C-alpha cells in the first residue's frame, strides 16, 4: 500500500497525522455510548465540585465533527498519493482510494466497531450531484451534439442489451448450477442484470481523466455513462416492482417503454426549465455579484431534486440544466464569479469522488457478504463479454450512419472503458430485503473492483500500446474559431445546394432561433447582440492580457511580431506625424520612462459587498524588481515601434478598451501596466482613473459595477492615442496603469 512503503527512517508527519485521524475517527464512532462527564447534575447541589475549567462534551458536535474528519481524511489521502510520484503514475487514484477505504474499514472492524456503509441517501443526494453537475456544466457541447446519435445508441440499446443478456444467461447458469442458486428466478436475474449493466460516470471520469485520450472517445464513453441513467432507472424500477409480484405482462412491457420516454424526456425538460430560470436570474445579478455562483449551484441542485421527486432521471436533469444555463450565465456573470463557479464545482466533485471511493472500500469490509464462486465469476466474465459483443454489434450498425467511422481501436477503447462503479453498488444496496441480496451485493462489489482495478490500471498502458490518439492540448486560436464558423456556414450552404436538410441545416436554424429570441431574454444588456466570434475574440484578448501580466514577460504573446509587420505600408496615405529626429525620440522616450514610475494611486474603501479590488493585488506583492524592469523594457520597445509607424488612426478603432489600474499603495511600481495610457496633462492624482474614451460607433457599456466600466483592449491600434498624446504633451504626461474591474467571463 502506498503509505506503508515509506522509508522507515523518518516517520513522515502526514502519515502520523493520518494515523491519528484514523484513530480519532474510530474512537469517535465508538464513543457515542460513552457516558458524558457528570457536569449535568442540577439536582445534586450538595455535592459541589469546583468550577469546571475544562469540559468534554463530544455529543454536541459529534455529527459535523465526524463528517469533517472523514472529508479531511479523504483529502489527506489524496494529497499523500501525489507525494509519492511513481505510484500515482501506475495506479489510478480511484484504486488507491478504494484500498485506503478497505484499510480504514478493516481498522474500524478490528477495533470492534460497526463501520459506516455507503448509505444510499448520502450517495444519491449528496455525493453524486456535485460530480454530475461538474461534468454537465463543463460538458464539451460541440462534440457531444455531433455524436449524440452514437451516444444514444450506445446508452439505450447497449444498456438494454447488457441487462437482458446478462440476466438471461445468469438465469440459465443458475438453473444449470442448481443448489443454492436454483431459487433465483428470472426476474431477480434480470434485476441483477439491470443493476450491473450500466456504465458508471464516476468511475469513467476518474479513470479517463488521467489517460487523456482524444475528445471523440472520451465523449462517447462519458456521454454514454450519463445518458444510460434513464434506462437504468426504468429497468431497475420495473424489475424491482415485478420481482415482488413475480410475473410481467405485455402491458407492463409497453408501459415500461412509455415510462422510459417519460423518464428521460421529463428529466431533460425539468433540467431545461431550471436552466432557463437560472439563466434568467443571472441576467439581473449585476449589482450583487457575490451571490452569483450560488444561483448556478442551487438551481442545478433543485433540478436534480425535483427530478428525483417524480422518479425521473436526476442525472439527465442535472446535465440538461448545466448545459442550458451555461452559455447565458457565462455571458452575464462577472469574471470572478465564473472562476468561483468553476473552482467550487471542481472542488466539490473532487471531494465527492474521493469520498465515494473510500466509502466503497469501507462498505466492502463492513457489508454482509455471501460468496458463491460460480455466480461471481460468471458475472464478471459476462460483464466483459456482453460489453464487447454489444459494442462490436452496435458499432457495425452505427458506422453505416456515421461520417467519421469508428475504427477497431476506437471500439476496443469504448468496450474496455465501460467501467462499473458506485452507482451499481448503491442500487444494489437499495434493494428491499431480497433473499439474494447479499449474493448480489457481493457480485456487484466484485465486478466494481474488477473493472476499477484491472481495467482501470491496464487501460493506460493499453492506450499507449495501441497508440490511440491523445487529446490535443492546444488552446483554440482565433484562426481556428474563424474557420470553425466559416466551415459551419460553408457546410450549411453546400447542404443547401445539395438540397437535403442535414445536420448543419438544423444546427444553423437552432443558432438563428437562439440569437433572435432566446438571447434577448436571457442575456443582460448589450451582450445579447454580440456575435460569437466577437465574444470569443474578447475572451482571448482578456486571457492574453492576464497571461502577460502574470508571467511578467512578453514571450507568450505573438508580440515579437507586431502590427507593423503585417500592415501594408501605404505611403500614399500620408503621415500624420512628421518624422522626428533621433534626438527627439530619445527625449520622448526618457520622459515617458520617467513617468512610468509615477502611478496614480487611489485609496479605495474595501467593502465585503463590492468587488472593486484589483484582481492583481496579490500579484503586486509578488512582482519582483526584475520582472518590473523587464516589463518596462518591453514597454519601451513597443513605444519605439509605435512612434515610427504612421498612425492609421481612422482605420482600426478598438472595440473596447481595458483599463488596468493599480490599486496598491506603493508609488514606485508600475505593477500591472502592460501598455501605458496617456491622459490629458491636467488630470491630477486624485482623479478617478476610470475615464474612458470610447469611439463613437462603439456601444457604450452600460454594465457598470459601481462606476467602474469594463472594456477589452484591442491590439496595436490602441496606441494611436499614445502617438497623439506623445506629440501633444511633451510636458508631463501622466500614465495610467490599467484596471480590470469585473471583466466579463473568460
Amino acid at each position: 500500500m502506498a503509505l506503508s512503503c515509506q522509508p522507515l527512517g523518518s516517520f513522515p508527519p502526514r502519515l502520523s497525522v493520518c494515523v491519528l485521524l484514523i484513530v480519532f475517527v474510530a474512537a469517535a464512532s465508538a464513543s457515542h455510548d460513552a457516558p458524558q462527564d457528570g457536569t449535568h447534575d442540577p439536582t445534586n447541589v450538595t455535592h459541589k465540585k469546583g468550577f469546571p475549567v475544562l469540559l468534554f462534551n463530544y455529543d454536541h458536535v459529534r455529527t459535523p465533527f465526524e463528517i469533517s474528519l472523514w472529508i479531511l481524511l479523504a483529502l489527506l489521502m489524496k494529497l499523500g498519493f501525489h507525494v509519492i510520484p511513481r505510484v500515482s503514475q501506475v495506479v489510478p487514484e480511484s484504486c488507491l482510494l478504494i484500498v485506503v477505504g478497505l484499510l480504514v474499514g478493516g481498522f474500524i472492524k478490528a477495533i470492534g466497531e460497526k463501520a459506516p456503509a455507503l448509505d444510499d441517501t448520502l450517495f444519491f443526494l449528496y455525493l453524486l450531484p456535485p460530480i454530475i453537475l461538474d461534468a454537465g456544466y463543463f460538458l464539451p457541447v460541440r462534440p457531444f451534439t455531433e455524436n449524440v446519435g452514437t451516444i444514444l445508441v450506445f446508452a439505450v440499446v447497449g444498456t438494454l442489451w447488457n441487462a437482458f443478456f446478462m440476466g438471461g444467461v445468469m438465469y440459465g447458469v443458475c438453473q444449470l448450477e442448481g443448489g443454492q442458486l436454483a431459487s433465483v428466478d428470472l426476474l431477480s436475474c434480470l434485476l441483477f442484470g439491470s443493476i450491473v449493466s450500466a456504465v458508471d460516470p464516476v468511475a469513467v471520469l476518474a479513470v479517463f481523466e488521467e489517460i487523456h485520450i482524444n475528445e471523440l472517445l472520451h465523449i462517447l464513453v462519458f456521454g454514454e455513462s450519463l445518458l444510460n441513467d434513464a434506462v437504468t432507472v426504468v429497468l431497475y424500477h420495473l424489475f424491482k416492482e415485478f420481482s415482488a409480484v413475480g410475473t410481467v405482462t405485455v402491458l407492463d412491457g409497453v408501459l415500461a417503454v412509455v415510462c422510459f420516454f417519460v423518464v428521460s424526456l421529463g428529466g431533460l425538460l425539468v433540467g431545461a426549465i431550471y436552466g432557463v430560470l437560472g439563466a434568467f436570474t443571472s441576467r439581473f445579478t449585476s449589482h450583487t455579484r457575490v451571490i452569483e455562483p450560488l444561483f448556478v449551484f442551487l438551481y442545478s441542485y433543485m433540478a436534480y431534486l425535483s427530478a428525483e421527486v417524480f422518479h425521473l432521471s436526476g442525472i439527465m436533469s442535472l446535465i440538461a440544466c448545466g448545459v442550458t444555463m451555461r452559455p447565458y450565465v457565462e455571458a452575464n456573470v462577472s469574471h470572478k464569479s465564473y472562476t468561483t463557479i468553476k473552482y467550487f464545482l471542481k472542488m466539490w466533485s473532487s471531494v465527492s469522488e474521493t469520498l465515494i471511493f473510500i466509502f466503497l472500500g469501507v462498505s466492502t469490509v463492513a457489508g454482509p457478504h455471501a460468496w458463491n464462486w460460480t455466480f461471481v465469476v460468471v458475472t464478471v466474465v459476462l460483464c466483459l463479454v456482453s460489453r464487447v459483443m454489444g459494442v462490436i454489434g452496435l458499432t457495425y450498425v452505427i458506422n453505416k450512419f456515421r461520417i467519421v467511422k469508428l475504427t477497431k481501436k476506437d471500439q476496443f477503447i469504448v468496450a474496455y472503458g465501460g467501467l462499473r462503479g458506485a452507482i451499481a453498488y448503491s442500487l444494489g444496496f437499495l434493494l428491499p430485503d431480497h433473499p439474494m441480496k447479499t449474493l448480489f451485493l457481493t457480485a456487484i462489489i466484485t465486478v466494481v473492483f474488477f473493472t476499477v482495478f484491472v481495467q482501470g490500471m491496464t487501460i493506460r498502458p493499453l492506450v499507449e500500446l495501441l497508440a490511440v490518439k491523445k487529446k490535443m492540448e492546444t488552446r483554440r486560436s482565433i484562426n481556428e474559431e474563424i474557420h470553425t464558423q466559416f466551415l459551419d456556414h460553408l457546410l450549411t450552404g453546400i447542404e443547401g445546394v445539395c438540397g437535403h436538410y442535414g445536420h448543419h441545416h438544423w444546427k444553423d436554424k437552432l443558432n438563428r432561433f437562439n440569437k433572435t429570441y432566446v438571447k434577448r431574454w436571457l442575456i443582460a444588456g448589450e451582450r445579447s447582440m454580440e456575435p460569437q466570434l466577437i465574444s470569443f475574440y474578447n475572451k482571448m484578448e482578456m486571457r492574453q492580457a492576464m497571461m502577460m501580466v502574470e508571467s511578467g514577460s512578453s514571450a507568450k504573446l505573438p508580440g515579437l511580431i507586431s502590427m507593423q509587420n503585417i500592415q501594408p505600408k501605404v505611403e500614399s496615405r500620408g503621415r500624420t506625424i512628421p518624422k522626428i529626429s533621433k534626438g527627439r525620440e530619445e527625449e520622448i522616450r526618457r520622459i515617458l520612462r520617467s513617468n512610468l514610475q509615477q502611478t496614480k494611486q487611489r485609496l479605495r474603501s474595501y467593502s465585503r459587498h463590492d468587488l472593486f479590488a484589483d484582481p492583481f493585488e496579490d500579484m503586486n506583492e509578488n512582482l519582483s524588481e526584475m520582472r518590473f524592469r523587464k516589463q518596462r523594457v518591453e514597454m519601451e520597445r513597443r513605444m519605439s515601434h509605435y512612434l515610427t509607424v504612421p498612425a492609421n488612426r481612422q482605420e482600426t478603432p478598438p472595440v473596447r478598451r481595458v483599463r488596468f489600474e493599480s490599486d496598491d499603495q506603493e508609488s514606485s511600481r508600475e505593477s500591472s501596466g502592460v501598455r501605458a495610457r496617456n491622459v490629458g496633462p491636467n488630470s491630477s492624482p486624485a482623479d478617478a482613473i476610470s475615464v474612458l474614451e470610447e469611439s463613437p460607433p462603439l456601444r457604450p457599456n452600460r454594465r457598470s459595477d459601481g462606476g467602474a466600466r469594463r472594456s477589452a483592449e484591442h491590439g496595436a491600434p490602441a496606441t494611436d492615442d499614445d502617438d497623439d498624446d506623445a506629440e501633444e504633451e511633451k510636458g508631463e504626461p501622466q500614465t495610467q496603469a490599467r484596471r480590470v474591474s469585473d471583466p466579463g467571463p473568460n
Partner: protein
Amino acid sequence: MGALNSLPDEPQYVGLAEKTGFSFEQIGILHKRFKQLSNNGETLRREDFNTIPDLLCNPIRSEIIEAFFDRRNFRQTDAVGTVHEIGFGEFLLVMSHFRPPSIRLDDEQKEVIRMEKLRFLFNMHDTDNDGTITLEEYRHVVEELLSRSGALGKETAKGIADAAMLEVASISMGHMEPDEFYEGITFEHFNKLLKEFEVESRMNIRFMNMDTTTLCK
C-alpha cells in the same frame, strides 16, 4: 431501386464516378438536383444559385457560389480564373471536395484528401488568385462572417482579422524584424495554421444514397 433504373448516361457516370469517387446512386441524385437548379438546362449559372432559399441567409453565400465557378477547384492543374457557367461534371467535382474520406484509406491517401480540402478552403479565401491570402482578403472573410451585426461588424472585423493575421505570422515566421513585412498567408502557412483543425473529418457532408431531394426544395 428507382434511382438505378433511371440512369441514362451510364458510361459518363462511370467516368465521373472514377474521377470524383461518388457512387452511381449519389451521382444520379446529384444529377437530378443539378437539373432542378438549372431548370433542366445543361449548365448552371450564378443566377441559378439564387433560387436556393437556404443560401440566401448565409453570410458567406457569395464565396460559396464563387467556389463553384472557380477553375482552381476543377482539379485541372494550373487552371486559374473563373468561368461563367459550369456543367454537371464541374458541379460534381466541386461537390466531391466534401465527400468523407473512406475508412479504408491509409495515412498517405488521407493526407492527400486533407490537402485537397485545405486547398479548397484556401481558394475560397484567396480571391485574387495570387497564391497568398493578404490582410485585406482575410479582413473580407471576417467581415462577411460578422456581416449580420450591422455597422459594428466592420470595425471589429478589422480588429479580429488583424489579430488573426498576427497569429499566423507568429506561427509561421516566429520572429520578424520591425521593418520586415509579412506578405500574406501562403498555402504552407495555411496548412501549418490548421494542422490541428482536422479538416478531413470536419469538412464533410452526408451524401445520400436514397433519393430525398423531393423532400425539400
